[in-house]
């Protein structure tokens, strides 16, 4: 009986990691017009407990995208420098949209797995109920 539970745990870890990624994507999209904002990135890695890999997935450390910020010409902007330029954010809405779609799709796949594991456990218990 330990296997179904560990399958549930794996699926839950996948959902947790994907929702964290979705949260960062939403944060990036919200800040698409914030001057000087750098895009936030998370990479996934295998979770390690007590020095042993568990097979679960978790979101790693958040990093900032180091691509140079675009210089936008707007002399009327309060943050514009002497030449009339200010640093925008390096968020690309198109990329964030694609990223959020992918995260949603992977989340759903994990959810389907969770549901199926639960069903399998339930039908196993159904044998006892006779």
């Amino acid at each position: 009986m330990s296997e179904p539970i560990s399958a549930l745990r794996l699926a839950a870890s996948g959902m947790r990691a994907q929702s964290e990624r979705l949260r960062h994507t939403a944060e990036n999209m919200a800040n698409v017009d914030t001057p000087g904002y750098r895009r936030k990135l998370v990479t996934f890695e295998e979770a390690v407990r007590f020095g042993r890999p568990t097979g679960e997935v978790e979101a790693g450390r958040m990093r900032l995208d180091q691509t140079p910020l675009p210089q936008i010409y707007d002399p009327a902007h309060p943050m514009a420098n002497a030449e009339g330029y200010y640093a925008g954010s390096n968020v690309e809405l198109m990329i964030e949209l694609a990223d959020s779609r992918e995260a949603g799709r992977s989340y759903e796949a994990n959810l389907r797995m969770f549901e199926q594991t639960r069903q399998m456990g339930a039908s196993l218990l159904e044998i006892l109920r006779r």
Partner: protein
Amino acid sequence: MFERIEMMRMARAMGHHVAQRQVVVARNIANADTPGYRAQDLAPFEDSYRRGVETPALRTSNPRHIPYEGQLRPTALTTDEAQASPNGNTVSLETEMVRAAEVKRQHDLSIGIYRSALTLMRASLGRR
């Protein structure tokens, strides 16, 4: 007691195998976006069942001892050699969905066989 009946033993072994495979598929799907992760799978049930038991049956020196038949050896993990995406990940969600459907079908099959075997035994006991 039920271990002695071949049909139930096989259904039990299949259920065990399928539960292990479910964990492998769940792990693949959870790691669908992990860089460098290679998708894994279990060898088919037929192979692992034909190879027989690993732990030998216990010797009994008294007829009242409960016999222990030994356990099926855990099946070998195989790694997919599919085309990796740019980040080195070989998980394809579509393949995993097919595997998950297969797992569900085999699980239903093993439970169905186990249940009908139980019904057979009930019938032979004269109960419904």
